[in-house]
């Protein structure tokens, strides 16, 4: 076996606290090491060329790159060794920057540690086997779950690109919450107008199938070839889709769980949604006194909603304006902790609301007590540092966004994860905000956390772009890290079959052992840790490889 070790200085990042010359010298004498090189920046063009050319010239069997963490430049390095004639799954990355040089500044200890880490890479990679990324055919169609503004936006984009779309909505009508809004900020348009426009376009499309009053009852398959059973008013229906976009929206916060605010006890205490749809029915006097409360159901750890709902400040401002427009001589006081009018034009809208005469008091209202004369708002004006007790004719609660009601149901059907607040969890908050942990399943809109309309629409479109990119070619490559059974060791106890969330393990009745359906396997490793006889493992992550790495780290230098 011929092993090549390439050690990066990362400028000063590694070299500053690791004696790279000593590391190089150590491995030059090491068994089977044909190449031990160091270089200031392996990711630079000459650095890349060094790796490629030495791999090719020496006919290396293993390449160890000791540099930054494997989350950086992985595809590029894989590509290099491939160009040098080596199977890219025989490349091993060793993180001597994040796991070593950045951690401490004792050069002696760091150098020892770098040697141990690289040695572990050498020992561990000796067990690697050449793997091939598998090409699978994908169904060029998408299922969008949820027909709110985000799901509609996703469906529209996909349909525009010629993709077949199944749009599934549990309600009888498409449009979600936006359809019910009478006055969408900042245009002032009726929400149903915006929705109708989108829905009409979709209805005209031949490549869009709309299922309303429909519930998904089962879900299976794997990336590129998912399958769902839908319960529609016309009976059960099965759809096949290459990928899925989950856009099931949010639930408006129910202020009944804030008993001190008196909601539900008195009809003079309403939510922003109720104000919007029924100001005329509230029977307010000619010059009403109205209190508006921000952050009801948001930024509140007592009810498990520590997050900011992002839309309710604008809604609170709008509530104030709505009252002022109808009742010029009304007294409107808005109680806030912070005014977060972050969308474009939001700060100007805040200023405009002030100009229209709405007063802003910094204080999170303590309690609202219904009295015969009105609703008594008791709170603190924190800027004056004084307690206030004022009677109002109406208290408007600017409610936040709670997770959608079907979150648990959809999460368990699709085997995707919820975050700590019970919204859907994204694969990465910044780099992969539309992805879930499952390939081809995306999340869009408020079901992954509070968003305003503009953000929800963009989120829906972005998820659609990502999904389109995966399905566009009609085929895709899947990672080869799937489970593998050693038939000599398998006792047929079927513990792994129970553990497998992807349902990729099947029992072979004839041979009395389990077999892996590679297309369905997600490579999660649950079977590996469940197996009592170490008979099932992941390709490229053998137990023997890990054992040898541990041994290498503990061995004397």
């Amino acid at each position, binding site marked *: 076996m011929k092993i090549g070790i390439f050690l990066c200085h990362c400028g000063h990042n590694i070299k500053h606290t690791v004696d790279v010359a000593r590391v190089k010298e150590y491995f030059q004498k090491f068994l089977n090491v044909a190449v031990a090189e160091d270089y200031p920046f392996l990711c630079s063009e000459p650095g890349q060329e060094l790796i490629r050319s030495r791999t090719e010239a020496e006919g290396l069997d293993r390449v160890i790159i000791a540099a930054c963490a494997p989350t950086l430049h992985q595809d590029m390095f894989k590509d290099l060794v491939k160009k040098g004639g080596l199977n890219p799954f025989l490349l091993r990355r060793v993180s001597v920057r994040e796991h070593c040089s950045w951690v401490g500044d004792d050069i002696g200890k760091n150098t020892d540690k770098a040697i141990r880490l690289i040695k572990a890479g050498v020992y561990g990679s000796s067990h690697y086997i050449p793997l091939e990324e598998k090409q699978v055919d994908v169904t060029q169609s998408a299922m969008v779950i949820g027909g709110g503004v985000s799901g509609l936006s996703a469906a529209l984009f996909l349909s525009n690109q010629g993709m077949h779309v199944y749009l599934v909505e549990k309600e009888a009508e498409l449009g979600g919450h936006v359809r019910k809004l009478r006055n969408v900020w900042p245009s002032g348009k009726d929400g149903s107008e915006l929705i109708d426009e989108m829905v009409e376009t979709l209805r005209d499309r031949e490549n869009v199938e709309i299922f309303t009053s429909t519930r998904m009852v089962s879900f299976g398959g794997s990336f590129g070839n998912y399958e769902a059973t839908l319960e529609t008013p016309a009976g059960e229906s099965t759809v096949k889709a290459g990928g899925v976009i989950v856009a099931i929206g949010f639930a408006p916060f129910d202020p009944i769980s804030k*008993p*001190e605010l*008196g909601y539900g006890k008195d009809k003079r205490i309403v939510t922003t949604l109720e104000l919007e749809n029924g100001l005329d029915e509230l029977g307010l006097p000619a010059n009403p006194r109205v209190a508006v409360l921000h*952050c009801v159901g948001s*930024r*509140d*750890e*007592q009810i498990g909603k520590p997050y900011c709902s992002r839309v309710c400040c604008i809604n609170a401002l709008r509530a104030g304006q709505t009252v002022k427009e109808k009742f010029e001589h009304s007294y409107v006081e808005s109680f806030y*902790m912070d005014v977060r009018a972050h969308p474009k034009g939001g700060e100007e809208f805040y200023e405009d609301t002030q100009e229209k005469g709405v007063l802003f008091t*910094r*204080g*999170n*209202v*303590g*309690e609202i*007590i*219904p*009295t015969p004369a009105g609703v008594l708002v*008791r*709170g*603190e*004006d*924190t800027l004056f*540092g*004084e*307690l*206030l*007790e004022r009677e109002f004719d109406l208290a408007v609660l600017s409610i936040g966004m709670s997770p959608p009601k079907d979150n648990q149901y959809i999460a368990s059907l699709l085997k995707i994860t919820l975050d700590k607040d019970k919204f859907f969890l994204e694969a990465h908050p910044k780099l992969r905000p539309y992805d879930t942990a499952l390939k081809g399943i995306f999340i869009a809109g408020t079901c992954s956390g509070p968003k305003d309309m503009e953000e929800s629409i963009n989120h829906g479109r972005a998820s659609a772009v990502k999904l389109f990119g995966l399905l566009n070619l009609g085929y895709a490559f899947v990672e080869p890290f799937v489970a593998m059974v050693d038939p000599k060791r398998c006792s047929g106890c079927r513990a792994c079959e129970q553990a497998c969330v992807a349902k990729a393990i099947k029992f072979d009745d004839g041979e009395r052992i389990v077999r892996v359906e590679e297309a369905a396997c997600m490579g999660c490793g649950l079977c590996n840790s469940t197996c009592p006889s170490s008979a099932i493992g992941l390709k490229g992550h053998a137990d023997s490889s890990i054992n040898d790495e541990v041994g290498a780290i503990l061995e004397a230098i």
Partner: protein
Amino acid sequence: MLEQTVSRVLTCIQCGKCTGSCPESGKTPFNIRMLVRKQQFQSAIDEAIPWYCTSCGACTLRCPRDVKPSEVIIDIRSLLVEDGQIPLAVQKALENTFTQKNPWGRSRAKRAAWTENLDFEIRHVSETAEKRLLFVCCIQAYDPRCMVIPANVARILNQGGVEFGILGEEEACCGNEIRRIGEAGLVEELQEENKGNLQEYGVKEIIALSPHCMNALKKEYGDMGIKVSHYTEVVWDLINSGALAISKPFEKKVIYHDPCFLGKQNGIFDAPRNILGAIPGVTPLEFSRARETSLCCEGGGGRMFFEVETIYQRNAEVRVLEAIAKGADLIATACPFCVMTLEDPATEKGQVVRELSEILMEVL
């Protein structure tokens, strides 16, 4: 950096929810939000201010950042207790509790004096079959106004066929108020003593007579594996199951006052109301501030043992005035401290205050 204890001072965003929820805000110099800010910056606090807190718990229950402002008060008081800079009456209550295991300094040997006039015998809990303990509470063991409450409840439970026993002079103060005064060392001592007895006698269940004792035994003694309930829960179960029959009507308009330690802090709103509702003839009334927004009587957090400096309208008086305005014949409650604080202005204004067991004694 400031060390965080039970309270979470550093995460406060100064929103004022606590001050807006506090029964002492506005009318007294006490501003709890301001005290939390001062703690964040470790700036000086006037030593008289922290003693206004009644430990009603509204701030901690509602704080959106879970700062636990009432625990901040305990932190501040602890430092004052350590330095000895505390009101004389508080000092005295602590000393009494140390020596006689009750804040009033009454003889420990007389803790079971309330049992003397009963026409049946109450056994020591160790001699009972079911090891069910009636935890009496200091004020109800000694105060002449309140001694009737344990006697009543004992009669009611007896009539309902509930077997129970007491600890007698071995019962020590539960430590609920002492913890809120800020004397953690003494609390630990009291808890050790009570826990030792509970363990030794194999107590399986505790029926607490005072919501304050119930709170401490339930939430502050750690997991003892003992079921703790308030007597109103037990009595309601007896009435509901038919084990206790109400034989006489009670033709009165009754307005119920939620004790903070029973209601908002422990979620027991319905048991006392259900008991009243089961009595024929009772017309139940409600305060405008009831259940979660009940107005604190100002008897908690050590306030039973001393008077604060400022002269202002007492919440008890506000309560009595509303009861009168609503035409209530009497105010009912289920806490000895509430009885004591409400009765003062009530007597002056010709209003009647009754502990629930007192009403039950008239109808059973």
